[in-house]
């Protein structure tokens, strides 16, 4: 690879999809927009794999935009955690775009395809940008690029169900309030420190000590990101948005959008605030932990009552986000590692499950569990993928779900938090109910009369089974993911000023 390209990998990660996006809208060749989007996502995936390989042995890549050295210039900073999340996002982008061709052709009007893929690639750009940047205000800008694109692609589900429009509108209102809260927090931090570079911010906040302004900044950023990552009870936008968005979009968003928001939360908590004052850790323990516990139980509980498969998966997402936040709020290296590995594991699992739902929407014309009775016989491969994903949601051994639950329980035991262990186990048992409910309907009941359902096309089955296969593969051999998560957690711990037991 030419030296020139190797040097500029971090910026290429963002620039390539950003430039490709408008061309998706301009291409008038049939399927041209899809091809361009797909090739773009392949390039971004290749770049993030290269970055992942470059940072795997602990090296930190610091890229200075326009040659301006930080803290004056904008810095792109890639370490193990970034590279891990970048790989998840761009990998999901490739597979969902592969899947999207058949699914989107069914769910979105043909004349909107160009604009749809433009928004999709812009959303990818935003998510990659949020992840790679080392500048706090840049995070906001990219967060809004991805969010605005997300509102548009959620609304494009309106052909199937007009409720996509109101879902997108509510998401827009909530998302904008969240982003604005985040900016207020940034403003307060800037008032204290006079800098926006994350590493520089961390340094100056440590010297600054305690103040009311810092506490306010912390609170605003926590609530703002809580809205973006659908922390219970700020999750109201999520179920409708994921239910009525086109299935490929649900698969993509469930695997990336909330995960990237959790990444930003981790980055701010550990790398910027760094727990330099006890207040920050106290809030995490007194506010975030109880909400995470409540979310993981209530999300799972509501999921058991859903008849719409996509809505069921959305509530299950809220429950799993709760599990990740439990890991974060443990404030230990092992809890953090559990959260990061669950971030990957849940992305893989949920993407495959939403792809299953999309295959039903296309071939059976419905995602209602009652109407999908007996679908296991008509669409055996699709339903089998659901069984794999469902087992992973419950946390049955040999799936990735088990790995993350294992690390999470282990981390809770290390802190001696018995009630937390009980909550994790109970929410897994509730997952057994809602996953079992669908599997029972799909396999045990006869199909309704007069309905013809065919197996989904290969372009949908392949990405679905790649995700399902990944959730089996990393469930059996988790050395790569657990090693990456452990190193990422170590990096965060080293950056913060917490004293570890």
């Amino acid at each position, binding site marked *: 690879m030419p030296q020139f390209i190797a040097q500029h990998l971090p910026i290429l990660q963002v620039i390539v999809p950003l430039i490709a996006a408008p061309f998706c809208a301009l291409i008038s060749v049939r399927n041209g927009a899809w091809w361009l989007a797909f090739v773009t996502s392949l390039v971004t995936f290749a770049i993030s794999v290269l970055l992942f390989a470059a940072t795997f042995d602990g090296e930190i890549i610091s890229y200075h935009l326009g040659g301006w050295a930080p803290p004056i210039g904008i810095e792109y900073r890639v370490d193990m955690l970034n590279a891990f999340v970048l790989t998840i996002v761009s990998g999901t982008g490739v597979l969902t775009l592969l899947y999207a061709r058949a699914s989107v052709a069914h769910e979105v009007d043909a004349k909107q395809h160009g604009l749809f893929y433009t928004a999709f690639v812009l959303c990818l750009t935003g998510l990659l940008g949020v992840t790679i940047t080392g500048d706090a205000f840049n995070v906001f800008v990219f967060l809004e690029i991805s969010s*605005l694109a997300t509102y548009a692609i959620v609304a494009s589900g309106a052909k199937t169900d007009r409720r996509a429009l109101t879902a997108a509108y509510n998401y*827009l209102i909530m998302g904008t309030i969240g982003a604005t809260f985040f900016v207020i927090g940034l403003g307060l931090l800037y008032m204290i420190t006079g800098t926006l570079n994350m590493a520089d911010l961390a340094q100056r906040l440590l010297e600054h000590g305690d103040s009311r302004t810092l506490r306010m900044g912390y609170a605003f950023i926590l609530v703002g990101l809580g809205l973006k990552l659908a922390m219970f009870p700020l999750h109201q936008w999520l179920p409708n948005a994921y239910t009525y968005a086109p299935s490929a979009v649900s698969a993509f968003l469930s695997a990336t959008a909330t995960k990237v928001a959790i990444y930003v939360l981790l980055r701010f908590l550990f790398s910027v605030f760094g727990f330099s004052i006890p207040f920050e850790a106290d809030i995490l323990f007194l506010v975030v932990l109880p909400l995470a516990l409540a979310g993981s139980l209530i999300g799972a509980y509501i999921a058991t009552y859903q008849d719409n498969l996509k809505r069921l998966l959305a509530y299950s997402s809220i429950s799993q986000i709760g599990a990740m936040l439990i890991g974060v709020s443990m404030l230990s290296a092992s809890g953090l590692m559990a959260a990061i590995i669950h971030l990957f594991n849940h992305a893989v699992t949920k993407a495959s499950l939403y792809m299953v739902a999309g295959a039903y929407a296309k071939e059976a014309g419905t995602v209602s569990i009652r109407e999908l009775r007996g679908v296991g016989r008509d669409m055996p491969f699709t339903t089998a993928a659901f069984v794999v994903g469902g087992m992973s949601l419950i946390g049955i051994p040999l799936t990735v779900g088990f790995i993350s639950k294992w690390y999470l329980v282990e981390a809770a035991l290390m802190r001696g938090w018995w009630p937390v262990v009980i909550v994790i186990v109970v929410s897994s048992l509730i997952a057994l109910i809602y996953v079992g409910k669908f599997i029972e309907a799909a396999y045990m009941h006869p199909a309704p009369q007069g309905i013809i359902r065919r197996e989904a096309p290969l372009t949908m089955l392949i990405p679905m089974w790649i995700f399902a296969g990944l959730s089996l593969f990393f469930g059996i051999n988790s050395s790569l993911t657990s090693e990456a998560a452990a190193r990422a957690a170590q990096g965060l711990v080293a950056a913060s000023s917490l004293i570890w037991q």
Partner: protein
Amino acid sequence: MDDLITQITAHYNYWMVIILMMIGLYITISRGNLIKKIVGLNIFQTSVFMFYISMGKVTGGTAPILTGNPDEVYSNPLPHVLILTAIVVGIATTSLALALAVRIREAYGTIEEDELLTIERDAEAAEDKI
């Protein structure tokens, strides 16, 4: 009493920001009309713009223009530049929200939230009967 007055007047800009912010947030939450909600969101965002702009003010400072005088006191231009970006984001958000409101009006025939909720509840009840 004097303390209180100085407390209020010294932080005049923050009081204005807080009042605007609360007005905006209240409208966004309480109004049922989708357009009014967008207006509320705009007021809320504007308060943040004002917060950033007033933050960069240096007492006695001029506009940040290079005059050649090294002792020149000038306001901090960085928050202003940041907020230009945020204004652009705000415009994009508003236009997208308005576009969605138009589409919702076309699809449902109303932009009142309570009427939309009734229509959606009826749709859900109809789905349950199948």
